[in-house]
Each structure stands twice: as structure tokens, then as C-alpha cells.
């Protein structure tokens, strides 16, 4: 790919990017959120039309490079380019087989299911991705769905496979398996572009890698000759501090107390069992656990989204029984939800509306019926500035921003809405606050949380990133099947210990 330019409204997403991948290699494509990785690959597979630039592909007939024009996904398929999207593009209500043959114009009108079924089974065996072709997509786990995404591209003889952050949705074991599969495919002569921002995986899986920053190609290197630190520097353009010191102030009053809290979920299963936990002002309590062991419910109870069936909750000493979510917010609870796009933001509203969603009761913002437009604009611009949100303007729709910038909006809104009103008893419930974020944004979010904590907030941090929890928490509560197994001091625990506790063992 040569000189690719792509503009989005108000942003130049790709600025004359050159990108070269050799045949049969696994090529890592790195960059922070919004650096243009996905955009570049979307141009290659015909989803976006570039403003300028040329694409050249290897032509096996003449054994040389040939310029191709890819303006629709169909063109890309004809050229042998297939993309495994981050958000799977599968028809849920159809079977694996039906998804595989989608779009293939066969000579026969009526589908010959048996023959195709055998083909798919064969293909699955060859690459170690066995799957039942008759299964419906909605019956499959995320990892299995990803296999279908890969298989359907292999079934169409894709020579170049683009994997857009494939490991983001996988467990470590599944990710390792995927790595094996990719290696096997490379041996078979397939070319793989592997988009990620996990540096470990780049080092482990790829032959060469390219780093994008702000829509430009910063560097293409042999992976064998580089280090994680060098790659990280390329990504953010400066040295990265990988560890953040946890706040060092002595804890104050209780901001959150839960006593004997039990919750049943919608299926009647007990999701929280007799939980006792407390968070003091100036303290970060990390909640660790394999996902699905009650962390989600714990956060929901602490923010008032779900009422508890038994037990009691106190925010800043105030009994919250029977309180609405509004009551929790008024008591000083901020919530950074795990599902940023679905719950955290109103994607179709502009950045400005998203920033004031929780502050509309503040007098200066809304005096009575009408918003004070001038104040709101100033307020919003100040937050955009302070929280380093990269956006074309305050009127840009939130969904058009990258994940990191979306999270900064949520962070800004949640912190600021309580900041001015409640300096003594503030609780911030942060759920997976850095999930899917790049190095720079992660660092930003963590340091803001730590800063809030040193200014007196109590933070309940639910995360699946153990290093994050150990790095910034003061105490760590480990959850297993709805119980809090143990609460340990963060400065005297090892990752191995945490792993044991998460598996339900005791120390």
C-alpha cells in the first residue's frame, strides 16, 4: 500500500501511509487507539474508499506486483483479501455453513449442503479449527465465533488475512491457540496482518511489525530485533511509564460499606453471596476475579443499578436501602461502566451533551428549563482540554471518536459531576476502565483515578488486568463464584497468589 490518505469529517485518519507486507509472514500492525490501524485495513478490504493512494498485490501468474483497485468488499475478496473484524460480522441466526458460503455465487441455485459441510470440516482440520458446520452462530462462544470468521475467509481462498485485534475478546488460552493457528496459516503460505496493541503478542507471534501513530507510518521493524519498550515508544512517541505509584495518603472515613449483601440475578441464580466490603476515602480497592464471578453485580449494587435482596449498603455513612440510582448519584457515587459504548455514552449525541449528561442539575448549566449555552460551551471546552479528549469539536458525535477518547469523556463526566459537590464522601466505581485502551490512554485514565483518590475519593476498581490492580490499588478483594474469597494488601501479594485466589483456592 502506498501513499494512502483517508479523511473522516474533520479528521485526517490516514496521512500518506506506506505499508508493505511480505508474502507468508505474520505482520504486526500496532498503534494507539485512533492511530489508523483499522482504518488502513478497512481501505485494503474495500470498506472505506481512500482519498488517495495505490494498492499493489502480488500476482501469482506473473510473479510480480500488480496495482489493484479495491473499491468494494467484493473487489477485495476477488483479490484474495479477507478481514476478521473486531466486531464479528456474522449472521447470528444462520449456521456456520451458511455464513461461510454467504456471497459466493455458485453455479447451482440450490445449495448443496452436504458437499460444503465436508469442505468446511476438512478446512477446519487442516488449520486446527474444528467446528460443527451445522451449529448456529448464536450457540457458539466468542472464541468459536472467531474461528468461523477466520474459516469463512479461508473458505474463500483468502491469501491475505487481516485480523483486527483478534485477541481482545479471547481468554489467554484461546489467544495462545489463535497464535498457533496463525503460525500454521503462515506456514501454509498465507499472509497475515495482525492488528493489536498488546506488545507481548507482537513479540511472540509476528515476523515483522509496523507502528502507526496519528495516521502516519512511524516505523516498520523486524520483530526479532526490537523490544517491547522500543515499540511502545514508537506508539506513543515518548517514554512510557509502565507503573503508576499508588496513592500514598492515609485512608479517611468510610465512603462505601456493604454488609452481608446478597443479590439474585434475573435467572434466579445467586450472583452475590453475603458480601462484606468497605472503601475508605483515599483508598483504591481493586476487585479481581475471573469474569462472571460477581464483579459486574458488585459494581451494579454499589451504583444502585441493582437493589440487593439481603444486606445493607452505606454510602458516606448514609443507608442507601431503597434508593434510586439518582439517590446514589446524589450521595456522591460516580460510575465508569464497563460497557463504555452501550452504557457509558449516548453515541448519537455530541461530545458536549455527553459531558453534561450528569451535570444538568447544576445551576450554572441549567438554570431552570433552558441550558445556559455559553456556560455549557465553556464548561465542555474546558473538560475536553483538561482531559485531553482528541475530537474535531464539541459537536462531534461521541460514537465517531476512538475508544480512548470515548473513555476520557466518560471519565471527565463522572469525575466532574461529583467533584464540585461532594469533596468528602465521593465513591468512584470504575469497571474495566482501561479495557481495550492503548498505552497512552490507559496511563491517562489510571493517573486520573489515582489523582482523584489522593484528593479524597474512594475508588472501587473492577478490572481483569491484574497488573493494573496491583499497580494502583491499596487493597485487593478477590471474587470467586459470588463470594469475596479474600481481601489482601496490594503491596504484599504476588500475581501467583492472586491467581490462586481467583481460582477459588485459599492461600
Amino acid at each position, binding site marked *: 500500500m502506498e501513499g494512502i490518505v483517508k479523511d473522516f469529517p474533520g479528521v485526517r485518519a490516514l496521512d500518506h501511509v506506506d505499508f508493505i507486507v511480505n508474502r507468508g509472514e505474520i505482520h504486526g500492525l500496532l498503534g494507539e487507539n485512533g492511530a489508523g490501524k483499522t482504518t488502513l485495513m478497512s481501505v485494503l*478490504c474495500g*470498506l*472505506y*474508499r481512500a482519498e488517495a493512494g495505490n494498492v499493489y498485490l502480488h500476482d501469482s501468474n506473473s510473479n510480480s506486483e500488480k496495482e489493484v483497485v479495491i473499491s*468494494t*468488499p*467484493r473487489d477485495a*475478496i476477488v483479490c484474495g483479501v479477507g*478481514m476478521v*473484524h473486531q*466486531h464479528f*460480522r*456474522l*449472521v*447470528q*441466526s*444462520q449456521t456456520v455453513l*451458511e*455464513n461461510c*458460503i*454467504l*456471497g*459466493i*455465487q*455458485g453455479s*447451482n*441455485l*440450490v*445449495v448443496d449442503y452436504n458437499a460444503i459441510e465436508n469442505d468446511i470440516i476438512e478446512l477446519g482440520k487442516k488449520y486446527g479449527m474444528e467446528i460443527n458446520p451445522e451449529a*448456529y452462530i*448464536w450457540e457458539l462462544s466468542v472464541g468459536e465465533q472467531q474461528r468461523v470468521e477466520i474459516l*469463512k475467509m479461508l473458505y*474463500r481462498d483468502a491469501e491475505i488475512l487481516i485480523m483486527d485485534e483478534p485477541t481482545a475478546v479471547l481468554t489467554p488460552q484461546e489467544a495462545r491457540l489463535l497464535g498457533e493457528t496463525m503460525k500454521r496459516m503462515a506456514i501454509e503460505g498465507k499472509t497475515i496482518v495482525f492488528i493489536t496493541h498488546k506488545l507481548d503478542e507482537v513479540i511472540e507471534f509476528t515476523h515483522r511489525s509496523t507502528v502507526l501513530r496519528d495516521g502516519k507510518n512511524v516505523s516498520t521493524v523486524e520483530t526479532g530485533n526490537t523490544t517491547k519498550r522500543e515499540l511502545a515508544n514508537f506508539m506513543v512517541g515518548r517514554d512510557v511509564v509502565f507503573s503508576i505509584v499508588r496513592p500514598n495518603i492515609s485512608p479517611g472515613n468510610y465512603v462505601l460499606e456493604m454488609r452481608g449483601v446478597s443479590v439474585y440475578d434475573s435467572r434466579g441464580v445467586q450472583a452475590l453471596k453475603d458480601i462484606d466490603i468497605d472503601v475508605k476515602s483515599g483508598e483504591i480497592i481493586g476487585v479481581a476475579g475471573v469474569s462472571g464471578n460477581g464483579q459486574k453485580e458488585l459494581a451494579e449494587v454499589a451504583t444502585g443499578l441493582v437493589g440487593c435482596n439481603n444486606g445493607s449498603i452505606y454510602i458516606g455513612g448514609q443507608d442507601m436501602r431503597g434508593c434510586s440510582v439518582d439517590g446514589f448519584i446524589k450521595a456522591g457515587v460516580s460510575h465508569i461502566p464497563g460497557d463504555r459504548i452501550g452504557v457509558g455514552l449516548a453515541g448519537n449525541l455530541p461530545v458536549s451533551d455527553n459531558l453534561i449528561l450528569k451535570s444538568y442539575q447544576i445551576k450554572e448549566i441549567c438554570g431552570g428549563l433552558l441550558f445556559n449555552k455559553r456556560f455549557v460551551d465553556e464548561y465542555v471546552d474546558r473538560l475536553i482540554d483538561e482531559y485531553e479528549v482528541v475530537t474535531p469539536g464539541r459537536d462531534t458525535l461521541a*460514537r*465517531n471518536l476512538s475508544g480512548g477518547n470515548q473513555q476520557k469523556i466518560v471519565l471527565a463526566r463522572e469525575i466532574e459531576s461529583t467533584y464540585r459537590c461532594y469533596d468528602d464522601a465521593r465513591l468512584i466505581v470504575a469497571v474495566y476502565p482501561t479495557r481495550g485502551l492503548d498505552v497512552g490512554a490507559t496511563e491517562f485514565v489510571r493517573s486520573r483515578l489515582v489523582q482523584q483518590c489522593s484528593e479524597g475519593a474512594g475508588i472501587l476498581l473492577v478490572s481483569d488486568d491484574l497488573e493494573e490492580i496491583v499497580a494502583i490499588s491499596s487493597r485487593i478483594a478477590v471474587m470467586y463464584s459470588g463470594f469475596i474469597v479474600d481481601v489482601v494488601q496490594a503491596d504484599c501479594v504476588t500475581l501467583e497468589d492472586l491467581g490462586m485466589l481467583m481460582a477459588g483456592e485459599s492461600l
Partner: protein
Amino acid sequence: MQTVDIAFWASVLSIAMAAGTSLVYATVGEIFAEKSGVLNLGVEGMMIMGAVSGFAAAYHSGNILAGVVTGSMVGGLMALIHCFVTITLLADQVVSGLAITLLGGGLASFLGQRLGVDGTPLVGLIGPRLLQIRIPYLSDIAYIGDVLFNRDIMTYSLYIVVPLVAFYIRRTRPGLFLRAVGENPQAADVMGVDVVKCRYFYTVIGGVFAGLGGVHLSLSYTPGWTESITGGRGWIAVALVIFATWDPIRSVVGALLFGGVNAIQFRMQAIGTNVPAALLNMLPYLLTIVVLVIITYFEGLRKKVGAPDALGLPYIREERV
């Protein structure tokens, strides 16, 4: 006593068949459109335009086939407007559909006053009509023979069209693409299916079927042109799609049931049962709501027979997900 009962039900079924034919056409058409993800609430407008144009063409040419062809083409043209507005311009499908229903109603009424001889109204004119064709031997089967094999050509066509459409959607390649486009256009697009072309095609087909439904009304069921000849059948068709859970075969059952409601009403009065007419007329919609509740409540059922996932949503390729 038992023979009386059977004869009673046979006569109800016979009327239901006649009344249901236009419903099946419109419903099958709407199934096509909705399977591709386009909600077409303009069925009523397309039907009534099909009815008026079909009757006018048949009347002036004296040729039934000319009427059928004209009516179906006009239905298709109306659908083309809907396509352009919703697929190309990405406007809201509900708004566009409602507008087309209103437009069709008004336009049909206007044309009905002008399309007679020398600009006189069509109302009251007697034109050619589809004749019932009695199929020898088969129609002699006791009770059901007359019901099934003494019908007009448009009803007979359905005997072939409906199973064919069902097979097409379920088992063929283009049918698979159609379903995929309605369920997840993003997925279909990256696999090389032309979403826009597909949606245009099936929505226009849907319009053609709606037009045919209208034609059957003005050339067979209630021959001639009267204002509001469709009497809300387009809306029943929209409801029927849900009732039939997007399945052409089940739509026939629904159409017979819905079409038969009126027939039952008359016959019931004749044998002395007195069920309020309003209650019976309500029945189709009530049943639709019941079906909707059932398929929404049970998750497994929804995934198997529920509405296409992308129904009513415009598709833009370059939008960030």
C-alpha cells in the same frame, strides 16, 4: 347434524379463500421486503394503486392480463419510491412507508374519478373479471373439492408461488443472501453481497406482489372500482407477516384465518350465534399481538422465527461500528 357442520365450514373456507388471496399476495411481498431488512408500511398504498390501475387497464383494453400486468407494475413503481427514499437517501422507513400509504390512497381516489371513459369516474363501471375455473374431477371431491379447485387463476397461481417462495428463501443461494442482508447487512457486505442492490430488488418485488394483491380485489373478489376498496387489507398484510413469523407457508394459514373472519361472522349469524362483529374484526390484530408476545418472550424462539435483526435499519458502509 354433522354434515351441516362440515358444509358450514366448507362454505366459510370458500369465502376465506376468495378473501385471502389478495392477502397472501401482499403478505408474501412484504415477507420479501422485510427479509431483506426493509420495513414497507406502504403496502396499503401499493395495493390500492394496483387495484385502481389494474382495473382501469383491464377495462380500457378489455384484457385481463393487461390489468394484472399494469397493477403489478404500478405496485412495483410505488415500492421503487420507497427504496429510493429509504435505501439511497437513508430516510426513516416508517415515515416513508406511511407517506406512501397516504399517497397511494389519495392518488388512487383521484385516478378513480378520472380514469373512466373520457375522464369520467371509474366507479360503477363493469369491466372484465377473473373467472372461476372448475378443474374437472378434482373439484368433485366431497366438501373440499369445490373450495380448492373451483377458483380463479390468481388463486391457483399461489398453489405454486407460495411453496416456491418458501423454498427459495430457505434453501437457495440467493435466498440465503437475502436472509443475511436482512439479519446483518455488515456481514453480508464484507462477504461481497451487494446490500443496496439486494434491498432494492426484493422491496420492488414486494411492491409487485402488493400490486397483484390489489389487482385481485378489483378484478375478482369485489370486481370493479370503489373508493377504499382495500379496506385496510394492506395493514392486515403487515400484521400477517408477524403472525406468520416471516414464513410464506404460515402466511397462507393466517390469510385464510384473517380472510375468513368476515365470512364466519355472516355464517354465524345465519345459524343463530351472535358474536359482535367488532370483536371478530379485532381478532386478526389481537392474534398478531399474541404471536408477537410469544416470539418476543421466548428467546430461543425469537432467534429461530423472529424478525430479521436489521429490519428497519438503514445500511451505510462507511459508518464506524
